[in-house]
């Protein structure tokens, strides 16, 4: 049982990032971005394209050096960042006054566009990313990763190297973003925009900049989550057009479980989701996912604002 919980914790690492991205956009644009998973997919495709321009159909995974792999990942994250920011600049800034459902429909349109564009640019063959890990054993990343491995070994859990890397990255990123939300000007702006966009802009907060930065960071988070998930699978064909859709659904359900009204709620929701997912898929195979979604719906039925939700009073 402890093993299952720990492996769930490890698996929730990319999910927390994806969920944080969903919440950032929800807070600043008051809609849920269905396209985040597809933006991540696009970024993952870019990374594989840099490592291996034509996919090897016989099933070989590329084997890059540390330098090229890091560079490719950075470019991939930048693609997520820029695409997401452009979406805000050219689409969502102009439709700020449409209803949340209208914005949702626009994000669904973006999902369709990226779904169609990926095979056009990258071909119809599946692609793959190698595991992150072994390449970084000689760099400074090794020390914190070894610390995580040691920590998990205390509980007699044998964590793999690439899993430890992803846990480390997720932990660092989430800490950085929460510190930024609490102590930087951007974070203050996000919180002000989240509580009331009009008043925030009257008080001198550049809500446009805050919103597009939030979109960009959410896009980058989606890209990191996508790269993490596909690379942790480490076999041929771990990247195809639809591989992020289940993650997107899980991120939304984690956010619902935690409640959209706070920033920390969805992230804790994602961790709970990961642990439950691991437990359920062990005991209730093959109905793990179904039962988990139904359980979350049941919880939401009794706690409509999520586990950590706060009721926001609204004046008419």
């Amino acid at each position, binding site marked *: 049982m402890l093993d299952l919980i720990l492996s769930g914790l490890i698996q929730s690492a990319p999910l927390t990032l994806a969920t944080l991205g969903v919440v950032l956009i929800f807070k600043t644009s008051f809609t849920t971005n269905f396209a985040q998973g597809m933006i991540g997919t696009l970024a993952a495709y870019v990374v594989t394209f840099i490592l291996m321009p034509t996919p090897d159909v016989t099933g070989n995974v590329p084997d890059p050096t540390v330098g090229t792999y890091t560079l490719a990942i950075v470019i991939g994250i930048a693609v997520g960042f820029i695409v997401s920011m452009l979406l805000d600049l050219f689409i969502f800034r102009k439709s700020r006054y449409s209803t949340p459902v209208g914005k949702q*429909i626009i994000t669904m349109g*973006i*999902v369709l566009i990226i779904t*169609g564009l990926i*095979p056009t640019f990258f071909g*119809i063959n599946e692609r793959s990313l190698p595991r992150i890990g072994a390449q970084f054993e000689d760099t400074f990343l090794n020390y914190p990763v070894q610390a995580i491995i040691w920590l998990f070994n205390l509980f007699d859990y044998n964590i793999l190297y690439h899993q430890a890397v992803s846990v480390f990255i997720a932990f660092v990123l989430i800490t950085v973003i929460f510190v930024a939300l609490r102590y930087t000007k951007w974070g203050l702006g996000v919180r002000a925009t989240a509580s009331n966009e009009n008043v925030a802009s009257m008080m001198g907060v550049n809500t446009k900049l805050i919103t597009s930065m939030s979109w960009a960071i959410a896009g980058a988070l989606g890209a990191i989550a996508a790269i993490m998930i596909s690379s942790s699978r480490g076999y041929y064909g771990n990247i195809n057009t639809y591989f992020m859709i289940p993650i997107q659904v899980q991120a939304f359900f984690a956010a619902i479980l935690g409640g959209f009204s706070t920033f920390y709620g969805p992230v804790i929701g994602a961790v709970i989701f990961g642990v439950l997912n691991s437990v359920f898929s062990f005991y209730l195979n093959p109905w793990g996912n179904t039962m988990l979604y139904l359980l979350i719906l049941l919880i939401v039925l009794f706690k409509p604002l999520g586990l950590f939700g706060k009721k926001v009073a609204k004046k008419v």
Partner: protein
Amino acid sequence: MDVKLSQKFKNYTKHPFFGFIVFGLILLIIPFAKDIIGVTLTDAIAKTLIFYVVALGFSLLIGYAGLASLGTAAFIGIGTFLLYSIMNVFNLPFIAVIIIGLIVAILLGLIFGGVSLRIEGMYLAIVTLGLSEIAVELFKNFDQFTGGVSGTTFTGIELFGFSLNSQQTLILIIVAVVGTMMLTHNLIRSPFGRALLSIKNSDSAAQAMGISILVYRLMAFVLSTIYALFGGVLYMAYVKFSMGSQWSLSVSLNLLAAVVVGGAKSIWGVLIGTFVIFGLDLAVFKTIPFLRDSQFSNMSFVISGILIIIVMMYFPGGLIGLFKDLYMKIKLKISNKKLSKEAVLDENND
């Protein structure tokens, strides 16, 4: 006598159902002209018509309730497998399909719509996205009823002791299309439709008038579920093959595109949208070999996506709204010209 007859005729043509019936009669040419049109095109038109039935239900949800759902494809899939399992596994008559289908659709709509709409309208899309994931798992694991990964083949429906061939099934589909058009028209103009519109325009004002937002939105969602399930039954009756993985998110998104692009509030608009989105996909991108086998086969998605965004941002009325605007502008210009001509004549007379 003559005048009276034309007056009488005018009364009929003015009736809103007249257009629907004429449309149905025109469509009835297709099953009898199959040899001229060709099998591929006939199939494409039949599939598009089936998706039109689903899209009509979806337009109640998007256009009138102001909600978006991503579970439409899952409901269609459930409909196809319901028809298969009731008629081929349990060997029950077709009427049982309708009754059980209604019950299943109402239950599914109440469960998933009830939970999400209780919070906020925006949550419906998220919860139905989860539903579509659940449905994929269901289709994969209940292989007795769904054929698992490889899908199932259906023998064809029997109605009143006759087993229908594909031509007769197409006629049944056309009858169903005209029927759903009439039903939707009546629903929109009933107190139900007016209540939905008032909620969409201002939920606070609607609530103040005593309209329960939850109940009406839930009703719209349940209705769209029934339409989708029924569309699935028609699909299975005509195509006779269904596979779980076929009913993925992209079908739901294309349906959304069809409704939004055509004009979510208009029965004819949805028809135009469905033919633009699905007709384009089925008749162009899936039939022309050069496009079908290349990496451009998914370009229809790109076109639908771009159309959704443009329509949502700039033309909330959809294509039909655009046509109406154009028509009004031309009419206005003509009447302006007439007026100015009359003014000139008047001046001359003076």
